């Protein structure tokens, strides 16, 4: 049991105040509470709504109750008064002739153009669109069409272990493959195979071809296909991404690894795992008459290359080999089928397992069975009387001479309807073909919410929670026929939007001797008099109640837990800067003051500062030759580029070097350094490299994205030392002669101006991120970023290297 966030209810979206009721009495249609939602947005996401200007202006807004003092009054406004005005307005809401407080009007007139981060008009448009979308989803959500529950039946002759495939988790983005043992009561076995997906699962479709189950999973922008082979673990085969939400995914019952996909832009694809996608049709318009719904559906037919494709106005069949030329109309909303006004296709389904050429089409009013050999004229029609349109359907083919059973399910109302029909039995050949007809009357089955009354009495608030959970809209439907010996029964699984799977069993009772012998065709129809064994009405029911208790306990436990993510995740910056880092310097240090004075003086004189360095560092022994006479080293190349003004381009080039090249360059540099500083001990240079790494490890905590070439300055921020610590005689620096290269003197010797030295150091420290003797094979980027924790532990004990602060 996981926590579940209920989807929005009408009262969340609709305007429900007195005024509105009056307005609505005349006209039908809902009024969306736009202002409240916009208000929610401002309160819940202040950063997104007015982040930057809010920050800029927060000094000018006074939030206290106290009166403003004189000097402040000229540049600050008191928000409390504004808030009071708003509250008063709120209280008077519903009065049609209300006058806006002048202060409020003045404020909004003044601010509405610039205060908002996103221009207000644009934001309002987006919000309104979203609200309309949510509202139409509430009225009828067709993204769930097809249902997100699939049953993979046991193999023929094998153990009675089937598999339920369904989504779960808070966002319904986990896909579970749960083994289920069919016994007296179906029992789950083992823990399910689980896959985390990147979107809410809207539909799970499955078909068995050549003894393998292919499971297609549809979310808004991704469709995936899994293969389940007998007892082995399910294997993901392929994923496709769509730009427009997909509205349909069906799996071919004929050819392994073939699926059909439709998107809301009106495109139909035949998707083969081996050969990829083939576009069959692209038409944003509906087929037979104009309808605004972007919903599309497609399924397979008796011919493996012919696919049906549907929109709200009807169905057409297309040949995948020549989709433009070869197509015929299978079903049209219109007078051929005797449709009502406003009737629309809700769910088509290929009934191939019952009869190879039959098709089921449901609308919000009726159910039709069609034969593709005699298109447009339904062979069976029946008004289903369901309150919500049936979004889910499941077929259980009957053996020859038995009736086929079709289950229809609705989402919001959880309705479940069983109807049985008998297709023709004799062949066309004799011409004595009996028509397709309903066998017995359709039967309503128990909905999920119906089991509430059978559960033990709960505390009122538990009862409410339970009720909320049980009345969650249904999200899928699956069923199986079970026969052990003379006992025949039907197991029906229902998935709710909260991710719970419910199961009920219909037991076939042998037909009783009918009271009126002339009327027994209805009662003797096989399976037409099933009996639902309600929980707690039989010993079996008792077991069910017990199992429910376990579920209940888990449910109440979850509900007690505070939700883990009540706040929107915020980015913590604590790792980058400590509080001390962020504190500004209390004042210029002695040295800085001295420097400033000196600089000012020199500027007045128009001269140059020449003995700057003497204050900074003890000159380390100069290396005899820093650079071989060869081509320009990267450093000078970079500086030349920088002076020429195209530093950025250089940086791009530089970072796009292969890792191998970088390492080679580094090794070269190290070697040169070693040769140059022949006297130095190995250990000293090693220490220094460790300190480099410790810095790196700190940074790598924040994620490798910091190393993206576009953001080198990050490092320089990191290096800003605590205020007032003079770089002079810092123990770490003096202990590390390796720093020679970076020291101001050496830089100066090479004619590098002071302003550039800091950048240069930063730059070099980036290159120093590689260990001195790279043992990794070139090309393993990950190993560069990943530093063993022991090393960073070690470095933590080392005194931190303080880099000389540049100038002031």
């Amino acid at each position, binding site marked *: 049991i996981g926590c579940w966030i209920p989807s929005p209810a009408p009262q969340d979206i609709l305007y429900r105040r007195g005024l509105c009721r009056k307005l609505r009495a005349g006209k039908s249609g809902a009024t969306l509470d736009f202002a409240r939602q916009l208000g929610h947005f401002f309160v819940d996401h202040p950063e997104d709504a007015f982040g930057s200007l809010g920050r800029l202006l927060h000094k000018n807004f006074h939030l206290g109750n106290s009166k403003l003092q004189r000097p402040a009054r000229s540049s600050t406004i008191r928000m409390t008064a504004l808030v009071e005005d708003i509250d008063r307005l709120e209280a008077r809401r519903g009065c049609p002739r209300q006058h806006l407080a002048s202060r409020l009007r003045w404020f909004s007139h003044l601010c509405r153009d610039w205060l908002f981060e996103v221009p207000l008009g644009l934001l309002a448009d987006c919000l309104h669109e979203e609200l309309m979308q949510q509202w139409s989803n509430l009225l009828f959500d067709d993204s769930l069409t097809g249902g997100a529950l699939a049953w993979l039946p046991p193999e023929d002759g094998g153990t009675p272990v089937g598999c339920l495939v369904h989504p779960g988790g808070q966002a319904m983005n986990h896909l579970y493959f749960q083994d289920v043992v069919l016994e007296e009561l179906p029992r789950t076995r083992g823990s399910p195979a689980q896959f985390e997906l990147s979107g809410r699962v809207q539909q799970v479709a499955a078909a068995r071809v050549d003894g393998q189950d292919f499971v297609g999973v549809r979310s808004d922008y991704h469709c995936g296909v899994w293969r389940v082979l007998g007892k082995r673990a399910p294997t993901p085969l392929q994923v496709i991404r769509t730009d427009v939400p997909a509205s349909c995914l069906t799996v071919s019952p004929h050819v392994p690894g073939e699926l059909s996909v439709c998107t809301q832009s009106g495109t139909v694809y035949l998707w083969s795992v081996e050969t990829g996608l083939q576009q069959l049709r692209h038409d944003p318009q509906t087929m037979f008459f104009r309808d605004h719904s972007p919903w599309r559906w497609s399924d397979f037919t008796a*011919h*493996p290359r012919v696919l049906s494709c549907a929109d709200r106005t009807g169905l057409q069949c297309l040949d995948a080999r020549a989709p433009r030329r070869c197509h015929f109309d299978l079903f049209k909303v219109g007078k051929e089928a005797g449709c009502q006004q406003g009737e629309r296709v809700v769910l088509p389904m290929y009934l191939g397992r019952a009869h190879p050429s039959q098709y089921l089409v449901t609308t919000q009013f009726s159910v039709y069975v069609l034969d593709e*050999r*005699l*298109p447009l004229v339904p062979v069976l029609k029946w008004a289903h*009387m369901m309150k919500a349109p049936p979004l889910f359907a499941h077929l259980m083919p009957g053996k020859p001479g038995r009736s086929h059973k079709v289950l229809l399910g609705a989402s919001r109302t959880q309705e479940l*309807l069983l109807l049985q029909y008998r297709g023709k039995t004799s062949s*066309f050949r004799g011409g004595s073909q009996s028509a397709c007809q309903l066998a017995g*009357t359709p039967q309503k089955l128990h909905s999920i919410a119906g089991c509430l009354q059978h559960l033990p009495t709960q505390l009122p608030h538990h009862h409410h929670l339970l009720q909320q959970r049980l009345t969650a809209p249904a999200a899928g439907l699956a069923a199986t026929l079970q026969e052990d010996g003379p006992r025949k029964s039907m197991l029906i699984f229902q998935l709710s939007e909260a991710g719970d799977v419910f199961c009920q069993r219909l037991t076939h009772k042998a037909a009783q001797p009918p009271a009126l012998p002339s009327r027994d065709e209805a009662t003797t129809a096989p399976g037409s008099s099933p009996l639902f064994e309600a929980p707690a009405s039989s010993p079996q029911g008792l077991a069910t109640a017990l199992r429910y208790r376990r579920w209940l306990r888990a449910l109440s436990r979850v509900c007690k837990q505070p939700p883990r993510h009540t706040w929107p995740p915020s980015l913590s910056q604590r790792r980058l800067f400590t509080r001390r880092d962020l504190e500004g310097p209390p004042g210029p240090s002695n040295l800085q003051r001295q420097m400033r004075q000196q600089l000012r003086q020199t500027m007045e004189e128009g001269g140059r500062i020449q003995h700057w360095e003497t204050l900074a560092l003890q000159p380390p022994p100069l290396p005899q030759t820093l650079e071989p006479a060869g081509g320009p080293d990267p450093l000078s190349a970079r500086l030349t580029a920088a002076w020429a003004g195209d530093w950025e381009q250089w940086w791009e080039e530089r970072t796009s070097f292969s890792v191998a090249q970088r390492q080679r360059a580094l090794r070269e540099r190290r070697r040169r350094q070693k040769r140059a500083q022949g006297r130095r001990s190995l250990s000293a240079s090693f220490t220094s490299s460790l300190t480099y790494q410790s810095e790196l490890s700190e940074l790598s905590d924040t994620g490798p994205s910091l190393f993206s070439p576009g953001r080198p300055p990050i490092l320089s921020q990191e290096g800003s030392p605590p205020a007032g610590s003079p770089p002079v005689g810092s123990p770490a620096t003096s202990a590390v002669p390796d720093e020679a290269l970076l020291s101001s003197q050496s830089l100066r010797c090479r004619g590098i101006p002071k302003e550039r030295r800091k950048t240069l150091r930063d730059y070099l420290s980036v290159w120093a991120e590689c260990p001195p003797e790279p043992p990794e094979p070139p090309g393993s980027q990950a190993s560069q970023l990943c530093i063993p924790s022991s090393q960073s532990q070690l470095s933590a004990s080392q005194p931190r290297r303080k880099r000389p602060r540049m100038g002031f």
Partner: protein
Amino acid sequence: SSNEHKLNFKKSKEACLSYIQDALLQKQWKRAAEFLTCYVESLEKDYSREHIGPSEMIWRIGTEILWHHSQSSMKEFNCFMEQMKTLGVKRYLKVCLEHVFHLLCDGQIDEAYQNLSLAESWRFGEQTAIQDKEMKLVQAYRGLLDYYSWSKQKNILLEQGEDGFSDLAVEQEMHGYFRKAAVNLKEIIKIPGVWDIFVKCYVDLLEFYGDHNEARQVLNEYAYNSKFPANPNAHVYLYQFLKRQREPKKSLISALKILHDIVPSHELMIDFNTMLQKSKKRKKRRLGLEVIFAALDYAGWKENAKAWSCLARQVKQIVISEKHLDWIKQEWNSRKDWWPAFHFSRYLAKRNWQEDKSLSYEKALVAGILLGKGCKYFKYVSHQGCKAQLKRFRMLKKFVNRHNLVYLKISG
């Protein structure tokens, strides 16, 4: 206020209806009946302009309840139906028809006939187009019942004829039925629609009296009139008629050709293929191959041993004669990317072998020629066949090995 009253009334009416529906769908006929008696009140103030008004609701629901209710009798049912007929004038004919169907289901054919005759004589104001159509339907069903009586009399006469004496009165009666039935049946099949049963009865009548021209005309009209929905049965009836008339092959073939164009997966396609294979014309044999390939495209034919043997026979013929390999090549071209997975997988080889050896033999022959001796299906089946020491399969293996080059020519 009256307005509020109206609203509340509407609400309670809707609630009542939903209770009835609930009870109906749970087969609680008694409960549904009780609610329906309450719902009858809604007739008093029928302000609704809905698609289905309360009176129609009561008729439909009441029929359903009375038909299933354990304590209702046919008498009560008839009584209810009579009431319903007077309840809505516009629906009179529809209710009559429905009543007749129930009577027929109950075996009361004479009462049903009476009811139909009554309905036929009913007149109310000016006839609308819908009423006209419904009246035609009423007449057609009466014609159907006349046909039923006619065929009963015919059987009596035939039996008597065997015994050697004939009854003039019975014969007279029979001819009377014929006239009545023919008039009414002829009318209904003029209207575009699917009238399979009426057409068949009418043609049967005509054929009995030797009016073959009229019968042919009726069937041709039913099959070829473009105003009628494309109905494969119409072509089947025509074909069967032509066959009975011992028409030349040519016209039989042309009838089946159209059936093939409409429904390539029709059962008659096997007959069609055998007919075409025997033909001397190249074009016809070519068509035969096309027909059998097209039929086997459909899922319903997957395990049809007869169809596979037709294909195997023709393919074998072509391979042995080494002429027209291009026919196979052309047919195979549009199928080679999916037939192997659809028909010739290893899984299917195993299953076909277990379930139907002769099917797997025919399929293996086709697979071996189309895909070569390396094909999974062929390999599995021929291996199993040789292991079981079946001579047929050994011959098959030899044959495919000998003609292995064909596969290269076809797929190349």
